[in-house]
């Protein structure tokens, strides 16, 4: 068991190093230089030249990369050229928003998906099963950004039930009001993300339930006289819970990657929107940091899921 986890960690290290080199080189290749925003238009070209020199921008790339990595380990990701503030602080403020939204969406997804999966598996081949399968299939096929746009149009603008921009209303005072306002702002994107992201969990749970319906322990429970409802709730569901929990890792990486779209549509100030804005301002310290963070979060999410799955299912452990 520990061998598997250790090996996964060792493979992670070169992956992160290669990712950081790639990200760094891509950021270097982006057009524009970092001082365009910070000095006034009348600045002397020689002065920019001097700034570039003392900031080490004429060094060979491996030297610059090394400096960047050393700063990285000191928790210094540089300054944002657009906002003139340290990248760590800038992203720190936005990261909380993105993570709240992702966590909320994930919890809602489980709330919707678990009953559907068990119900579909229990009534395999009958009408409820067909309805749930058609539902998951339709939600899976439609590109998510189209759903977001139509969702914000109907529920945000036409019906006016939900706010259409921001993460908190400007007149929120007191912690209860603030919390309520924050929750109100993530409700619509969270609901849309959850209603249209159930497919993996439902399908997995459904096949898991169908498999265990014919297993020995269920037959024993039935012959003991346990009511059908309790068999599903206590026996089958409990047994399928752990592999389903393992999906949380994959699910969170999917949500983070989707956050670029969600946050753009809802003008929600998280990391995704920050990324889109930084691209238009060529704010490449922020871009580098964000790509790196998303890559590492992807890695951690997948790793978590893999570890839980390998605990549950010995077949996928590495010998």
């Amino acid at each position: 068991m520990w061998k598997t986890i250790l090996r996964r960690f060792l493979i992670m290290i070169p992956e992160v190093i290669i990712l950081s080199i790639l990200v760094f080189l891509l950021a270097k290749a982006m057009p524009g230089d970092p001082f365009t925003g910070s000095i006034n238009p009348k600045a002397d070209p020689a002065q920019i030249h001097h700034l570039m020199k003392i900031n080490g921008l004429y060094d060979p790339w491996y030297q610059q990369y090394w400096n960047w990595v050393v700063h990285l380990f000191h928790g210094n990701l540089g300054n944002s050229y657009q906002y003139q503030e340290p990248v760590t602080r800038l992203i720190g403020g936005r990261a909380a928003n993105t993570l709240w939204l992702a966590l909320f969406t994930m919890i809602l997804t489980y709330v919707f998906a678990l009953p559907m999966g068990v119900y579909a598996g229990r009534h395999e081949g009958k009408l409820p099963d067909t309805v749930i399968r058609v539902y998951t299939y339709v939600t899976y096929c439609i590109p998510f950004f189209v759903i977001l746009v139509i969702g914000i149009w109907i529920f945000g603008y036409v019906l006016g039930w939900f706010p259409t921009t921001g993460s908190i209303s400007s007149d929120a005072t007191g912690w209860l009001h603030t919390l309520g306002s924050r929750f109100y702002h993530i409700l619509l994107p969270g609901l849309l993300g959850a209603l249209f992201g159930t497919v993996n969990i439902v399908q997995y749970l459904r096949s898991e339930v169908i498999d265990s319906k014919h297993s020995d322990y269920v037959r024993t429970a039935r012959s003991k006289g346990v009511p059908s409802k309790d068999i599903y709730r206590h026996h089958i569901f409990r047994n399928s819970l752990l592999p389903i929990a393992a999906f949380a890792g994959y699910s969170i990486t999917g949500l983070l990657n989707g956050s670029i779209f969600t946050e753009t549509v809802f003008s929600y100030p998280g990391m995704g929107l920050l990324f889109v804005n930084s691209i238009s301002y060529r704010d490449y310290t922020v871009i580098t940091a964000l790509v790196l963070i998303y890559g590492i979060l992807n890695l951690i999410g997948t790793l978590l899921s893999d570890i839980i799955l390998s605990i549950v299912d010995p077949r996928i452990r590495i010998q």
Partner: protein
Amino acid sequence: MAENFEQHSDISAADLARLTQEAQAEATPSTAKIIWSEFKADKPAMAALIIIVSFILFVMIGALFINTPKMMETNIMGYFNQPFTADYWLGADSAGRSVAKQLIVGSRNSIGIAIGLTVISSTFGICWGLISGYFNGYIDWGMQRIYDFMMMLPMTMMIIVLVTIIPHYNSVTLTFIFSIFYWEGTSRLIRSRTLAESEKDYVAASKASGTSHWKIIFREIMPNISSLIIVDCTLSFAENIGVETGLSYLGFGLPSQTPSLGTMIANANDPNNITQYWWTWLPAALEIIVLCLSISYVGQVLRRAADASQRQGSIN
């Protein structure tokens, strides 16, 4: 072959013809025949197929008759023209450009990119999966690590960064950039099937008789998993429509002067457009939904045809 056979056996030619006929009648029907009967049994699938094919043909041919630069010119007289009028069937946008014409050209661009992306990324993914699954050991291990690395990359972000780096790009370069990141799903599927297929006796027999690796991979294993490949290509085509339109929606896909379904939906980013001038973006959004649903429905039918236990159509 037949001549050879006659020399060494005493079965008459008439008997041989009869036996051949009987054997052909009993043989497994060809993939094309199975798929056709499956479509005949499922009327909605037939409808979906007809919708897709006729729609794609319509926009491909229709776009030839539209002068794109002229269409994209600003025409102040048509400022937010109402839909369902003689000049503007689906109204006009803020620059007075006809939405209906933009929709046709935009669909051509978006569908074209989706087709190109499917062809390139699936070809690459299939080759990758076949090679990785067939050659076990170090080759597979190395290819799996590259696969893991690609899975770690935040795809949307990487595409956006690459699009900003490249100074002048058009739909062809865009298709190639997308293809770098969208082969993983196919390759994983094909690899797992190839792993199972390589264990089979016919591969071992072919190896023992000295057939070259490449011939085994592409002439023997690939035809055997062809139904899987067809299904996967169809389903990824449906997904790929969402790729380009999504990026164009964010403003990092096709440039704004080239209409695409995504740039048209981006009209909805303006709070005025989204409520008052719904015709500038809603048709494009609905079109994407209908297209994606029908294409993946066809994919589901193909998947059923590939799996004998799920078939609904009868062959005879």
